[in-house]
């Protein structure tokens, strides 16, 4: 077996979908887990703005419903990330990545600001468009090799066409485009800040994982 992420330590079988932990995927999984726990216990940042020409300042309040919704989306994003990090099946990986994408849309979309909503809309369009090449890649892998299991593909007997790998990377790029919008929307220091970091972290993690998948299959 082509062991790009180290020797598998543990297999967890869900029928044909075999989840496997190598040192690489285990590290990414733990990173996603730790950040999910951080999101669970952290409280949103309350941004302060100094009023110009005086001693007064404004403290922006986060409504409870917004807090709850964004926390829910961040934790869902963390769970999807954990799934995408360790799954051993190409189609399952694409499903988890599109779940990450849609959770990121949710995190960005919950902010009540016209500018941010506009960014969320644009990102939603990219994430939607990104699913097409991604699922096309999974379909091409299934059609040309007859299997979807990464462990089978890693044995090297089957060749995945370059086009399928390129489409997979393009699709994951579309789903992981969130930091462009999150940064542009200036949300890292905005009200409700810690949850937005999940966007960046999940994008980083799915990029790392897709690199492993491409080198593996």
């Amino acid at each position, binding site marked *: 077996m082509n062991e790009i992420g180290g020797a598998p330590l543990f297999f967890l*079988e*869900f*029928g*044909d*979908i*075999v989840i496997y932990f190598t040192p690489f995927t285990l590290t990414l999984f733990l990173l996603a887990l730790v950040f999910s726990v951080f999101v669970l216990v952290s409280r949103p940042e309350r941004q302060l703005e100094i009023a110009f020409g005086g001693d007064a300042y404004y403290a922006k309040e986060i*409504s409870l*419903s*917004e807090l709850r*919704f964004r926390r*829910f*989306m961040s934790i*869902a994003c963390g769970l*999807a990330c954990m*799934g995408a990090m360790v*799954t051993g*099946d190409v*189609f*399952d990986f694409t*499903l*988890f990545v599109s*779940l990450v994408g*849609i*959770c990121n*849309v*949710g995190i960005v*979309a919950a902010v*009540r600001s016209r500018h941010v909503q506009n*960014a969320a809309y*644009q*990102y939603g*369009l*990219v994430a939607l*468009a*990104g699913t097409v*090449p991604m699922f096309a890649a999974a379909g*091409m892998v*299934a*059609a*040309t*090799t*007859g*299997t*979807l*299991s990464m462990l*089978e593909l890693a044995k090297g007997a*089957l060749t995945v*066409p*370059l*086009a399928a790998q*390129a*489409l997979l990377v*393009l699709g994951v*790029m*579309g789903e992981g*485009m969130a930091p*462009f*919008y999150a940064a*542009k*929307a200036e949300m890292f220091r905005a009200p409700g800040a810690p949850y937005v970091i999940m966007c960046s972290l999940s994008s980083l993690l799915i990029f790392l994982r897709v690199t492993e998948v491409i080198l593996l299959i």
Partner: protein
Amino acid sequence: MIIQKISRVLSNFDNILPVFAAACAAMSLFVLLTLPLPYSEDQLYPKEIVPGSSLNPYDRGGPPFTQAAIHSQYPENSPTAGYVTAYLTPLSLFLSEHTLYMGTTIVAHPGGILDEILYNTRGLDTVVEPTILFVAFAIAAYLFRKREA
């Protein structure tokens, strides 16, 4: 200099969607150039179209409660796959015995064919798919009710 120009274009988030669309178009062209791709005959979960079967095209064969042959990747991980794939409730059985044209109806209503590829061998996929839908509904519901909050 070129990096400056690129980052100036990308810093406006209205430009990222056109850039991604251009990348998709270029990639489609590249994929078209690599065609034709070979088709592997040894596919997982093969299904035959049986003309004359009233469950067409969802017939995986076999009487209920005896194991139908399902070619899965790791048969040892789903030892019970194939037992209930042909099971029909009395209503579905009635439909399947009296008409040849209700295959999709039988599959689509509760008590019809349970496709064990979906519920047994590839069960995790089926769990993730509705999760995507539920998350999408949650976002839509939150955005719709936002003005009330």
